Every structure is written in structure tokens, then in C-alpha cells.
């Protein structure tokens, strides 16, 4: 039941994102600001308030881990359907990946390393 509900919600988000970016992707591609907003739409303004409990906190996560995750989604090594679609729409460059990872890792949240 819960899964059906979150699947429906995910589908809604997919369609919403697709609609927002449909025009941009046909032309010059989204600006960095729009790419940032696409992440924030599900992970929260600063990556600190995920919209659904299944979505991870990004704020304060290690930059290199976030960048690696984005590369894995871009290269199809990670296959979450929402993230896969975002990759098709956003066409992230290596610079975008570095900048997004840097942005979210520098935000604050409850996230902490258990080594500290």
C-alpha cells in the first residue's frame, strides 16, 4: 500500500519535472540554477528536507560521494528510475556534477560521520 502510494507520488514528480524541463532540453539545456532547482524539488531547498522518506539527505554529505553518485546515475551504473530520467533531462556536464556536489555537501543538516 505504502509502496503503491510512493510509486504514484514518484510518477507525479517525474511528470512534473518532465513538463518543467521539456522546453529547455529541446533548446540550450537547463541553466545551472535550473539544475540545482531540479535536485531541490525532491531533496529539499538545501538538500536537507527530502520530500519522501525514501529520498536521501544530501546536505552535509561528502562531496566526493555525491559526485560519484551523480556519475553512476549518468553512466547507468545506478538505475533509480527518477534519477535516471533526471539525467536524461538535465544532461549534466562534469562541471555541473562537481558544482552540485560541492553545493550540497556545504549545506548543513543532521548528517554526520559516525567516526566523529
Amino acid at each position, binding site marked *: 500500500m505504502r509502496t503503491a502510494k510512493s510509486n504514484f507520488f514518484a510518477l507525479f514528480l517525474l511528470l512534473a519535472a518532465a513538463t518543467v524541463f521539456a522546453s529547455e532540453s529541446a533548446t540550450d539545456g537547463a541553466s545551472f540554477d535550473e539544475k540545482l532547482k531540479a535536485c531541490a524539488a525532491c531533496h529539499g531547498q538545501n538538500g536537507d528536507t527530502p520530500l519522501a522518506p525514501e529520498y536521501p539527505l544530501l546536505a552535509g554529505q561528502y562531496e*566526493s560521494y555525491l559526485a560519484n553518485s551523480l556519475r553512476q546515475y549518468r553512466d547507468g*551504473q545506478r538505475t533509480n528510475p527518477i534519477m535516471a530520467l533526471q539525467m536524461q533531462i538535465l544532461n549534466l556536464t562534469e562541471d555541473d556534477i562537481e558544482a552540485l556536489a560541492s553545493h550540497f555537501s556545504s549545506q548543513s*543538516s*543532521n*548528517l*554526520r*560521520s559516525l*567516526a566523529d
Partner: protein
Amino acid sequence: MNWPTISVLVAICSLSWANAALAADAARGKYLAETCMGCHAVKGYYNVYPSYRVPKLGGQGAKYIESALKAYKTGERLHGTMNANADNLSNEDMADVGAFFESHGE
């Protein structure tokens, strides 16, 4: 049964009563998460290739951790060490491990 044993049992029972509202058991999760600490609680630990920091898990969402572990178990997400570790976990175990990490944020 001696008194210390009985008081420990009473303490455990009241703990489980306190957690009854939550579906997942963070205390059990802590026990199951011992293995995780070998990488996720080591200061400055890097995945070797490709090179990236082993992610922070303290305070991360329980449901996210649970879904990540499921993805490692099914092979939807590939990482040798994580695939091997997740393979041993039941759905209940994954929920408990998630609850443990979520409860250990800042």
C-alpha cells in the same frame, strides 16, 4: 534466575515497550550495524576505485537506508562489499539498521 538477570530482562522489555510505536528497532539495528562501522565509522575512509569518501550515515533517513540496502541485495545497486553485506539482511534487519543510523544524527 537471579536478580541481575531479571533486571536486565525488565530493562529490555521496557525498551521494547518504549519503541513499540516505531515499527523498526534501533537497538537491534545497532547490533546488526556493527559490520557497517568497519567502513562507515572510520575517519577519512575512502572507497578505493573510483576514489570517494565512504558516505556519512548518521542522521540519514531510515527509509532511504532501507531502500539502499534492498537495492544492494537485489543487485540494482552494485558495490562488492555492500552487495555481500546486504545479502545477509532480512527486510526487518534493514529497517532496524536504518532506524539505528537515523537516530544517530547531529
